[in-house]
Structures are given as C-alpha cells and as structure tokens.
C-alpha cells in the first residue's frame, strides 16, 4: 500500500460526530476520579512516577550508608540500623525501582509505538500498578518502625530463617516481594500479548521496533525467571511460619537450595533490567544520529541470545560456595561468552554514530554516559567471570563497584536519556537543555568518584555489607572519596527533580516530533492514542511514510472512530500483523484499585498477624475481582465491525484466537515453572540423601496417587464435556461434578500421604513432598472458586457461543491442574526410583 490517497484504508470526509464519539469513549476522568483510569497513558505515568519515587527513597538510603562509611569506626548508624538500611537500599532499588521503571516505560510507550490504542488488559495493568504502589509504600514504611528486613537484598538462609531472624522483618520482605511478583508477571503477560497481537496492521515482526523486540524478550524472560523466586519465597515463608525445614541442614535441608532458586531468578533479572534500556538506546541513537540503526537484525538476534543465555549463568553468583570447580568452569566460560552479544550491540551503536551525525543534546549526554559506564562495568564483569579472580573479589566492594557500573550505567543512564527524550510526549514541554548539562556533569562525575574507588577498596580487602571498618587497613581515603562522590551524584538527581517539577508546571503545548524520530509514538495522540490506527510499510515509518502523521490525524487509516461506542483497538496476527478482529477493551473502573488495596491489605495484615482484618481485606479483594470480571466476557453488541472502507472484521474472538486465551496460557507457563521449581527443590533435597525416602518418612501407597490421577482425568473429561454444552442446562452440573472429582482427587492424594505419616516438619524431603501436595491443594481451592464463578455465569445466561472466554480459560486452567496433580504424584514416586 502506498501513500496514494485513494488507496488509504479509510476515505475522507469522515462522518460528523465520529471523532467526538471516539473522544467520549476514551475521555480521562478529571479530579480524584482520575484514580479510576485504566488507560495505559495514565497508568504508565503514575507507574513511572511511583518507581522514580522509590529511586529517590532508596537513593537516600544509599546516602545514609555512605555517611556511615565516610570515616572508620563511625557511629552515625548503629549496626542493626545500618543492616536494615543496606538491605532496603538493595531491595527497594532492585524490586521497587529497577524492574518497575522499565515495565512502566513500556506500559506508557509501547502501545503508541506499536500503533495500538492501549494495552490488551487495561484493568489488569491498573491492578498491577496499584498493588505495587500500595504494597511497595507500605513495605518501605517498615523502616520507620524498625521492622525493615535486614538479611541483605538476597536474604540467604539460615540467617533469614526463624532461628536467626525471629522478628517480622524477614516476613515483610517475603510478602512484600510478593507484590512485585504479581505486578511483574501481569506486566509480562500484557507485554507479550500486546506485542504479538495488537501491533498496527503491516507492522510485521521484522519491521517491529527494536525496543518492542527487547520488551517481548523481557516478557518471556520474566515468565521463566520470576517463578523461581516465587517458589523460593514461598518455601522460606513456609519454613519460617510452619517450620518446614527446607534450608535447615540439621533436618536434611540445604541453604544452597535457596541460592539456586534465588539466582536462577536473580541473574536473568539483571538482564530483564538491562534489555529494555538497550532497546531504548537502539531507539534513541538512530534518531539523534539521523540514520537508521546499523545491524538492526544482528541486534535483535543479540537480544534473543542474551535473553536465552542469561538463564545458564546463575551459578556465577555462587562461585565460592564450594560447588565443584569443573561445573563452575562451564559457568565461567558461559559468563564470558555472554559478552559477545553485548559487544554486537555496542559496536552496532557506535557504527550508527559513525554513520550519522550525533547532536550533543541532553539525551546524547546520557547516552555517552551510558557507553562509558556500562562498557566499564561489562569489562569488570568479564574479570569476575574468571574463577580465581572472583574467589578473591566476590562479596567485596569490587563487586559493589561492578554491579553499580552495570546497573547505573546500563539502566539508569539510558532511563535518564529516555526521560529527556520522551518527556515531550506528555504535554509538549521539554526539560531544560542547559540544566541538563549540569545534571549530567554532576551525575556522571559524582557516580565515577563514588564507585570507581570501590574497585580498589575491594581489592584492598573490604568486604560487602559491613557497617564499619578498622582505621588501619588503608580504606579511609577511598571511602571518603566514595561518600563525596555519592553526594555529588545526588545533587545531580536533585537538580533533575527540580527541573522536572518546573517543566510540568508549564502549560502544555503541541508535541510535534522534536527529535525527528521515525517511530510511531511520535504520531499525534490523545487519550485515544492515534485518531486512526496506522497502516505500516517500513521499520522507520515516520521517515519513510512522511505523510503518515497527517493521514492518521485525518482519520484515513484503520478504525478512525469507535464501532461499539466503547474503547477498541485492532487485534492482528503475530507474525505478519494482518488484521484479525476488533478487540473491545474495558473502560475506567474502580475495581482494580479496590481489589489491589484488598490484596495488599490481606498480605500485609497477615504478616503482622492481624488475622481478622486481613481476611476482611481478602474478601474485599475477591469481591473486587469478581465484580471486575463479571462485566467482562459478554457477547459484543455487533458481530461485525467496519474498520476501513474495504475491511470488515469480526468483533471479538473465541477460543485460541482470543487474547485472553493466550494470557491464560502464559499464566499457566508461569504456573508450571513455579511447579517445576518446587520439583527442583524436591530433587535437590533428595539428591543429598543417602537413603531416599529418609528414615522416618515413607512413600504413600501407590493406590492413592493412582486413584487421585484417575479422578483428575475424570474431572478434566467432565470439563471437556462441559465445553461442548455451551448454552445448555447441563453445563453447570457438569462443572459441579468436575469440582467434586477434583476435590476427591485431592482427598485421595492427601489421604495417601496422611496414611504414610507425612510430617513436613520432620525433614526437608517430607517438607518438599508436602509442598507439592499443598501447591496442588492451592490450585484445587482456586479451581473450585473459578468453577463456582463459571456456574454462576452459566446460570445467569452469560456463557454463550460468543462469550465463551470464561469457559475456555477455565478449561485450560482445569486441564493444567489435572496435569500438575499427576506430575506431582509422578515426581514424588519416580525420584527415588531414578536415583537408585
């Protein structure tokens, strides 16, 4: 399709009232009702703002640490206060700032960049944001009552077990992190479904912006990495609350198990933080240089390679744990190898700079800062990949230096560049170019003064996480320099904040395309995104389709209005981006906020053992979620929608074409990975036994797991039948029968273990068996609730051929639960047999 006017999707003139209808459907509520908005633009801005707030808060904690360490034997902070402060500095930075800010920028930017009007699950992203904001702020406040966790941001047991951390501090960490996990996984689902199914027509995968590729890979990484820490935190909380000894060596547990689970998440996590920044750099450099990205395809391949290989490297955080030099040598080689895809990106960026002409603007300064700091950090990363060198510098200030160089260089500086680059999108105002030079100078100079000396301090013997140090070890001047540098860095950040506040106070103006960028987020956009959804023919659309902006605003592309009167976008095929159906999106609602508040309240109040208040919040959350879901999955008002002169699309989709089906599938992959992590824990614990099951424990008699599996299969069969009974009276009864089968299946599994005398507190093997059983039980409870909900919908007549998502997704979850139950029984049975 070319720019010839008579070949554009929609012809002029557009009908009167079409634009007004579109505006009305998408209008952002004013005043305090703004908090009920679910539009990705508004949620995105709230999300970015909240994560930057956590950056400032955690930064202050860092300054407190530096004040304590400025001189030896300092008494500014007591040991126990310092230990809470350093733990919170790391935890808040990693969980409440680093991951959220990169997800938040994607929430804000991606739909526009892909030509979509919003993310595919707006209320889910609202829920994820509010859960994170409320949970995160409450978690931060534990500092003010002396209940902040103090086990370090990676919380190694046995130090963080009940015996050595008897207070609530560690429990706040375990439950607080739960919120981030919910948010991050919800975000990952949105990203994957949004990137694959809601791109503008014609934006094939090959033409998709590199930033979108980066976020797609990050979404998949989150799906496979986060479950490990969800499983780990669950195990540690079970140990603390119920004495199930997963990490207690005396009873067959192993502290190293935690390290495996944590770092299997922890290493991909740092690439989850870096890759979005790399995607942003790949967007900004070509724009500023005025030339397309050199080696675009190679960069995409490199991003995939980094994402994939990052899962093999976790043990390089455990080089000194005594795991065996042979195995660690493989990890060492792999850790060096991951420098190659990173090098591809770095040289591609430099080549782009060479080919073009970089303007020395504010974003450029921070991009240069990124190059300097991140490349230095990457090189020290190769250094610590060398085993003997790591044996000396692991857990010293050398590592503190390395991690800050790669995180601040690799993520923070690109994020600041991105803020200077994309803030004009908000209301047309730009931050000050002249202040930016000061901000950059203070941040860059302060950062290097603070953190470069730490390489030396570590080599001179200073370990991490020490609240003070002796005066005769040669560390005094180095620490003082680091403290001075930290405050200079902070001054730069403060200057930025002042400039940002100044800038947002100004009246808005036209956004335009101040950088002459090529990507779609610079098309004119309002609450509804673009007036019409662009048809794309190139990977630098604004450069190669120069009339695009004017055509889109005039309504000459797809969907220039709203067909159903509600919010809509176009769902397209994953690879070729061919239009498939009209995706109707939910509007603003208070339910996500209410449900998020209830969820946060439930977990936090449980931690402080205010049980009744906790359950009230839990009920509020469940009511909120049901109220929210009840409005969804209804037959659309029309079956066909005209989205362009020559294009009519079905409204909504059923079965595996539906976006919610894919979201459910992704969620089940997360679920399966959590389950796999529990199975890993069971295998790890079993492998340390010489006799399996250990003395005092026994396997259940085969009868019970076999019965249980049979009942699970029967239940799934009933659900499969129910799917064929849409609209008939039998459906709810089939579901009830399926639920009974499921409950009976669980009862059999439970009974078998009960008869075998399973005691989870006796030893770690029993505890892991009990965990597998309990995880299945949790699913049974969930499926009974979902099954009951489905019956209620069926009885109210909401389950029809064209509103089958609830039924289809319930069936998916049901079959998963059956498979999981069978797999759990098989795992417990087969592990000792295989080991023998």
């Amino acid at each position: 399709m070319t720019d010839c006017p008579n070949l554009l999707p929609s012809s002029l003139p557009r009908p009167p009232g079409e634009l007004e209808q579109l505006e009305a459907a998408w209008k952002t509520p004013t005043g305090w009702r703004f908090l009920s908005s679910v539009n990705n633009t508004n949620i995105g801005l709230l999300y970015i703002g909240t994560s930057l707030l956590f950056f400032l808060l955690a930064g202050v904690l860092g300054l407190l640490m530096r004040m304590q360490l400025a001189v030896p034997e300092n008494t500014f902070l007591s040991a126990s206060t310092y230990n809470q402060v350093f733990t919170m500095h790391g935890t808040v930075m990693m969980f409440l700032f680093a991951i959220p800010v990169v997800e938040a920028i994607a929430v804000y930017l991606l739909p526009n960049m892909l030509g979509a009007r919003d993310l595919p699950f707006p209320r889910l992203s609202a829920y994820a944001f509010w859960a994170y904001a409320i949970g995160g702020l409450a978690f931060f406040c534990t500092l003010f009552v002396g209940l902040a966790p103090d086990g370090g941001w990676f919380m190694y047991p046995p130090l963080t077990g009940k015996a050595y951390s008897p207070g609530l501090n560690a429990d706040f960490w375990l439950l607080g992190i739960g919120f981030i996990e919910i948010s991050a996984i919800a975000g990952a689902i949105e990203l994957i479904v949004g990137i694959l199914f809601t791109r503008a027509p014609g934006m094939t995968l090959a033409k998709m912006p590199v930033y979108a590729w980066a976020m797609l890979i990050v979404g998949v990484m989150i799906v496979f990495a986060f479950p490990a820490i969800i499983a780990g935190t669950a195990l540690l909380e079970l140990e603390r609350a119920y004495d199930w000894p997963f990490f207690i060596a005396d009873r067959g547990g192993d502290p190293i198990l935690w390290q495996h689970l944590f770092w299997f998440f922890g290493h991909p996590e740092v690439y989850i933080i870096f890759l979005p920044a790399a995607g942003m750099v790949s967007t900004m450099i070509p724009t500023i240089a005025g030339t397309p990205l050199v080696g675009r395809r190679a960069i995409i391949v490199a991003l995939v390679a980094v994402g994939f290989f990052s899962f093999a490297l976790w043990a390089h955080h455990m080089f000194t744990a005594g795991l065996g030099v042979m195995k660690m040598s493989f990890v060492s080689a792999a850790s060096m190898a991951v420098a190659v895809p990173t090098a591809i990106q770095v040289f591609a960026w430099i080549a782009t700079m060479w080919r073009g002409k970089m303007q020395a603007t504010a974003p450029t300064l921070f991009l240069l800062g990124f190059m300097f700091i991140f490349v230095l950090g990457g090189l020290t990363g190769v250094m610590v990949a060398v085993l003997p060198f790591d044996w000396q510098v692991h857990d010293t200030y050398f590592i503190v230096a390395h991690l800050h160089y790669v995180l601040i260089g690799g993520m923070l500086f690109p994020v600041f560049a991105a803020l200077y680059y994309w803030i004009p999108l908000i209301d047309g105002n730009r931050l000050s170019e002249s202040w930016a030079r000061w901000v950059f100078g203070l941040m860059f100079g302060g950062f290097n003064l603070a953190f470069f000396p730490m390489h030396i301090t570590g080599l001179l013997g200073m370990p991490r996480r020490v609240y003070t140090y002796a005066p005769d070890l040669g560390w005094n001047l180095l620490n003082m320099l680091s403290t001075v540098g930290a405050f200079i860095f902070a001054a730069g950040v403060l200057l930025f904040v002042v400039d940002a506040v100044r800038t947002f106070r100004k009246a808005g103006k036209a956004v335009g395309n101040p950088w002459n960028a090529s990507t779609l987020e610079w098309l004119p956009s309002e609450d509804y995104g673009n007036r019409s959804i662009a048809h794309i023919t190139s990977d630098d659309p604004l450069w190669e389709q120069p009339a695009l902006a004017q055509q889109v605003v005039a309504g000459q592309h797809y969907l220039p209005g709203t067909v159903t009167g509600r919010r809509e976008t176009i769902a397209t095929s994953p690879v070729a981006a061919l239009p498939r159906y009209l995706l109707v999106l939910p509007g603003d609602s208070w339910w996500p906020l209410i449900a998020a508040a209830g969820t946060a309240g439930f977990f936090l109040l449980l931690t402080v053992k205010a049980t009744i208040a906790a359950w009230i919040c839990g009920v509020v959350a469940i009511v909120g979620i049901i109220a929210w879901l009840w409005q969804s999955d209804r037959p659309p008002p029309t079956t066909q929608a005209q989205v362009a002169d020559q294009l009519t699309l079905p409204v909504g989709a059923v079965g595996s074409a539906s976006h919610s089906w894919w979201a459910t599938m992704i969620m089940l992959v997360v679920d399966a990975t959590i389950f796999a992590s529990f199975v890993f824990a069971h295998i790890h614990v079993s492998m340390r036994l010489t006799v399996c099951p250990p003395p005092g424990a026994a396997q259940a008699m085969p009868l019970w797991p076999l019965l249980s599996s049979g009942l699970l299969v029967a239940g799934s069969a009933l659900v499969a039948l129910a799917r064929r009974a849409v609209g008939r009276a039998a459906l709810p009864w089939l579901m009830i029968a399926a639920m009974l089968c499921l409950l009976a299946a669980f009862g059999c599994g439970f009974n078998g273990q009960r008869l075998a005398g399973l005691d989870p507190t006796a030893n770690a093997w029993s505890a892991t068996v009990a965990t597998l059983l309990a995880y299945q039980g949790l699913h049974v409870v969930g499926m009974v609730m979902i099954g009951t909900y489905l019956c209620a919908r069926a009885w109210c007549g909401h389950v029809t051929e064209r509103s089958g998502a609830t039924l289809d997704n319930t069936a998916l979850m049901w079959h998963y639960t059956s498979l999981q139950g069978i797999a759990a029984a098989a795992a417990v049975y087969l592990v000792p047999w295989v080991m023998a």
Partner: protein
Amino acid sequence: MTVPLQSVLHPAGPDAAIISQFAWVLFGGGALIFALVMTLVALGMGKQTRAVRPMRWIVGAGVAFPVAVLSVLLAWSTWRSGQLTAQSAQSAQSSQLPLVVSVSAKMWWWEVRYRDPAGGPDIVSANEIHIPVGRAVYVGLNSADVIHSLWVPALNGKMDAVPGRVTGLTLHADKAGIYRGQCAEYCGEQHARMALHVVAQPSHEYEAWFARQRQPAALPTDAFLLRGRQAFIDQRCSACHTIRGVAGADDQSRPGPDLTHVGGRAHIAAGTLRTHRGTLAGWIADPHSIKPGVRMPAAAGMDGEALRALATWLESLE
C-alpha cells in the same frame, strides 16, 4: 604506610600471587579495550558522517574480536588456574602431607582446631590460625549457624562456610608475617567485626608455638593472678569458655572461644581489640558496648579488683 595486611594486590603466598597476577593482567587488558572502545565512541561524536560497512562492525568488532580475546583469556586463565593449589581434601593428600586445620565459623568468631600429630585431643583455639611458612595448610571449613566465608586475601581467595556442608581452602604463605582476614559473607549484626589473623612462622618457631599450645594453662604462683583464676571459676565463665587446666577440658563443644592461650593471641573479639588487660577488662565488663548483639553477657556484679585480676590472669595465658 606499611604494606596493607588484607590486600589482594599484596600477596604473601603462591596462590595469592597467581591471582594477583590475574588481577593485573585483567586490569591491563580491560583498560586497553576500554580505551579502544571509548576512542571509537569519541570519533562517533565527530562532525562528519561516514560510510560504514556493517559487517565489519557487527562480525568483525562485535563477534570476532570478543571471541578472539575471550578465547585467549579462557585458555590462559584455565592454564594458570591449574597451577593453584587444588582446593579439595582429596588432592591435599599428596606426599607433602599438608597440615590440616579445622575452622568452624560461628556468629561472630572463628573456632580453630589443630589435629595433634601425637594423637592427643584436638588443640582448640580461636580467631588466629598459625601456619608454618612454606607449607600448604589445608583448612577444612564448616559453619555452626549461618553461612560465613573465610577470606585471607594475602594468601588465597575465599571459601564459604555453609551449614550442612564441609568446604576447604588451602593457605600457603611463603614469607613470615601476620595476615588479616575477614568474614566475607553477611552473617548478621556483627558481620563487620568478624576478622581473623593468619600467623605464618618459620618452621622452628611454629613447632615451638605448637608445643606451647598443647600445654594446659599453668597454675599461677602470683596471688593476684590466682585471684583472677578464681574469678573465672566464680563467674562460671566455663559455661561458655574452655580453659584446659581450669575447667571444661572435657571435649564438649562450648558456645564461646577456647581461652587456654588467649593471652598469646594478638587480638580478642575476632580481631576487634588488641589483647591486653585493659581491653580484656572492658570486654568482660560489657561486650555489647564494643560489639552490640554479641552472645556473651556482660559481667554481673564483679567488683573492679576482681575484674582487673581476671583480665591480668587471662593476659598471662600465653
């Protein structure tokens, strides 16, 4: 300034020397590559545009260059690492029969046990490891409570002490001296004050020291010292501390360090204070003012005279 005691870059043994060389080679190579890349970046900020050959950048610089450098690095580092003393008990059983010392890491001190070659009970000490110069000493490590990490940078890399596992580390000094180490895995409130010292002595001095260690604490003749010894008994210090020749020489492990030869150790409280009667008295009176959170209770109802006597007697236990 004297040579730093706890520095990776000031090795005092062959293993640390190899790793120190690693440090310099890696630093030099890294600095060179960094300078090269930054020069390319600087050139990219120039005023002119240039035609670029993408393949040269992507495949040449992005793939071939790092693969070549990393291959060389991997090969060289693997070869050089092979020259380190192997870190396992099995490989330690060479004909040279290195000494074996057991270290049990606790919150927040190090229990050190030497095997008696004459077959007697282990000689138990704390926070100071003596080794003869020029011989590899295998240190078997475990932890009594949480994860710790034994690290003496002048002699070798670190090794974690993990509850439920036994790990090991070789210490080999080739010049006499005192080398400071520190716990390198966060282990709670006083992780920062869990240091230790390795004393490398010429063989004859080591043998003499070891012979003294095998002796129990001698009964003093001086009345003041006797008063101190009695205070140790009266205060029931032996509930936590063994002093062979006084109380607790019954091979039962106790929560606190063995004090049989505490006066001969340069530091107390895991490297926190130099040993003399003043610091000993202050520590006994109130350990929490020096190391808050420590497991030792403050002395209850001790008069000043008894406290000074006790401290003086302990100082005399060399």
